[in-house]
């Protein structure tokens, strides 16, 4: 061994060689294997179901590897935008109605029309559910489920307090009275009838729609006036004063996730959410939750609407479009895939899938499917997709609702401020 020596130069050369090797080493060894990347937002529950469905698909397609990636809603759009900008977008992208126009029009998504009818069997989705994934007449998103806004409440708590919970037979005024009655009958400390919905965009939207107004009208402008927003803030101000909803510092802990909603954290007997989240909420809440429509407006219009809870899109740059479409089809139009996913992403749009799914659903999922059917008489047309900047305005709504709740502003000033900010954000976007 004595002539085995390493001098400095050999060392440098060999390390350089090793470095060069490692730079080229990251390639897949078997070229015939296909690899797909799939990104979605959502909870652990969703991840478990999705991974299980992917595993089932790989059993019948052994050559395929799927790298799933999931993050929470608020981090999701950051990550996706960064990946798209870096030309590194995943093949399959869970998409939202709010963003699909932006991504499709900028050429980040792939049109799927040529696959419809062969690899993609979505003909029984119903025209509305298919159209919700179209931008400028082309299909960019496959409906992953139908949902609507909903109130979720702890029935036992409402009963114990001797008050009437929300339903479509209850008007907003009655709801306010019921919350006050709850406060009187309730014995638990630091526990309130409802979360404070004054800063929640979907709740505000629904309330506006019942008056024939909208968050945004068809040409992307603010669809309400300062006095409408002021009335909304004032309405919640009354409930707050009567001890009917959670205090502002508790509401401020809600960061629009299932985990931080006052219903889940045990401060409120009612929370507001999207209907597909019912499964997730029930999983995190010990007491039995009931899913119900929002309160209604006397002589008002339907406030709810059926919305694609999420869509599935293909990245424009995908190298494996055929494989990605096949997997997508498995998730929305194949009994095996659909049954594993259940209704956690919303009720399947396909009539056939929904029918065959019914028998295998647990009680919670079944209640959610029934809810979607049950609210039909309070459902109106799908509003136009929100304009660019709508996400920032939703932030502003939350902040201004806090300023009113913490009494830094009156309801009138809050209403004024919201319209001013919303208008300026839309002009800038």
């Amino acid at each position, binding site marked *: 061994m004595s002539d085995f020596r390493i001098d400095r130069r050999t060392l440098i050369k060999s390390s350089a060689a090793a470095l060069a090797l490692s730079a080229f080493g990251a390639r897949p060894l078997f070229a015939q294997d296909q690899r797909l990347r799939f990104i979605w937002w959502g909870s652990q529950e969703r991840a478990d179901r999705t991974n299980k469905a992917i595993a089932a698909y790989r059993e019948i397609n052994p050559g395929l590897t799927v790298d799933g990636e999931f993050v929470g809603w608020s981090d999701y759009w950051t990550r996706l935008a960064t990946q798209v900008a870096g030309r590194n977008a995943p093949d399959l992208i869970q998409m939202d109605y709010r963003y699909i126009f932006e991504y499709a029009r*900028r050429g980040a998504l792939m049109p799927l029309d040529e696959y419809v009818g062969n690899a993609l069997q979505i003909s029984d989705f119903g025209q509305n559910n298919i159209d919700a994934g179209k931008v400028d007449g082309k299909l960019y998103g496959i409906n992953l489920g139908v949902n609507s806004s909903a109130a979720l409440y702890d029935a036992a708590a409402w009963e114990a307090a001797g008050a009437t919970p929300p339903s479509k037979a209850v008007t907003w005024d009655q709801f306010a009275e019921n919350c006050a009655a709850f406060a009187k009958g309730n014995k638990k400390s630091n526990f309130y009838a409802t979360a404070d919905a004054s800063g929640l965009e979907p709740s505000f939207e629904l309330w506006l729609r019942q008056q024939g107004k909208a968050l945004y009208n068809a040409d992307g402008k603010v669809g309400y006036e300062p006095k409408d927003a002021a009335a909304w803030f004032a309405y919640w101000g009354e409930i707050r004063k009567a001890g009917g909803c959670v205090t502002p510092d508790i509401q401020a802990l809600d*960061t629009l996730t299932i985990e931080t909603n006052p219903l889940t954290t045990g401060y409120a007997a009612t929370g507001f959410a999207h209907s597909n989240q019912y499964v997730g909420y029930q999983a995190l809440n010990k007491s039995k939750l009931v899913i119900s429509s929002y309160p209604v407006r006397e002589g008002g219009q339907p406030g709810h609407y059926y919305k694609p809870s999420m869509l599935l899109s293909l990245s424009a740059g995908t190298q494996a479009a055929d494989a990605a479409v096949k997997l997508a089809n498995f998730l929305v139009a194949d009994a095996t895939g659909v049954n594993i996913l259940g209704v956690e992403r919303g009720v399947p749009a396909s009539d056939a899938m929904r029918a065959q799914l019914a028998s295998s659903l647990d009680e919670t999922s079944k209640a959610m499917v029934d809810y979607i059917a049950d609210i039909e008489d309070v459902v109106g047309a799908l509003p136009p997709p929100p304009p660019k900047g709508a996400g920032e305005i939703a932030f502003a709504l939350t902040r201004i609702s806090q300023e009113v709740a913490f009494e830094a502003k009156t309801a009138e000033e809050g209403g004024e401020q919201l319209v001013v900010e919303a208008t300026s954000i839309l002009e800038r976007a």
Partner: protein
Amino acid sequence: MTSQTSSVGAAVPAGGRSAPAGRTRRAFGQTTAGYLFLAPWLIGFFGLTLGPALASLWLSFTNYDLLQSPTFIGTANYVRIATADPKFAAAMKVTFLYVILSVPLKLVFALLVAMAFNRGIRGLPLYRAIFYLPSLLGTSVAIAVLWRQLFAADGLVNAALANFGIIGPSWISNPNYSLYTLVVLSVWQFGSPMIIFLAGLRQIPTDMYEAASLDGASRTRQFFKITLPLLTPVIFFNFVIQTIDAFKAFTPAFIISEGTGGPINSTLFYTLYLYQEAFGFFRMGYASALAWILVIIIAIFTAFSFLSARYWVHYDD
């Protein structure tokens, strides 16, 4: 270096390729080797620090939303920041308040702990390590999450207050208190200035104190006439470093407000606002402009610190 090289060279069998081959070639080889060893740092500096920094300077004059290519818009971003951005004003207010409160408090606290340690406690290295621990953990996500639990409505702080019959608010989600919970978190991370203070205290010759006590100077007088003046270079160093750190603080506010800077922008640190503009609303150009303004603010602050140092920092020599 030369002697080292020749000794390594000598280990190579005669006639090998690395036999001496003239001075220039050898010097060239040495230079190359030097740069090769520097390469990891050089690549990191040019590729990950200087390059992106220059790119952000260019982007600050553009409109860039990540999906479409940047378009040049001149100084529009800077003009808007200076004239028409209420959130910029809010973020500046929060950040300056945070810096003004947290830096002096932290330095005083660190100095007090360092002086307690300087009295020669048994097991000093152990205590020093334990007290340094929060600084290692402090900027981490886990501690920010812990802080959220401590100061929540049903958190540990309120549980303790309940013993005295006080029902505390949810400190982190009340705009009147939320920033102060972050100041407390910052003061709690006193470890690194504390270690530096301790080293500084050790440098002060003990005979000065002996002489002072012989002359009948009280402990307080000794502190103000000996300890503090001789410690000013260390105080200055800590002050500059901590101020820069405080301007750049991000993680605690991000975690505790879950990225919103709320409630009512009460924890909207400058860096958090910058992050929101960049990654929340995809205004990369605007966020780049914000970043460069922060660089300028920190530079001005540091320059003033150095200018003022002439009047209060005493160097021994």
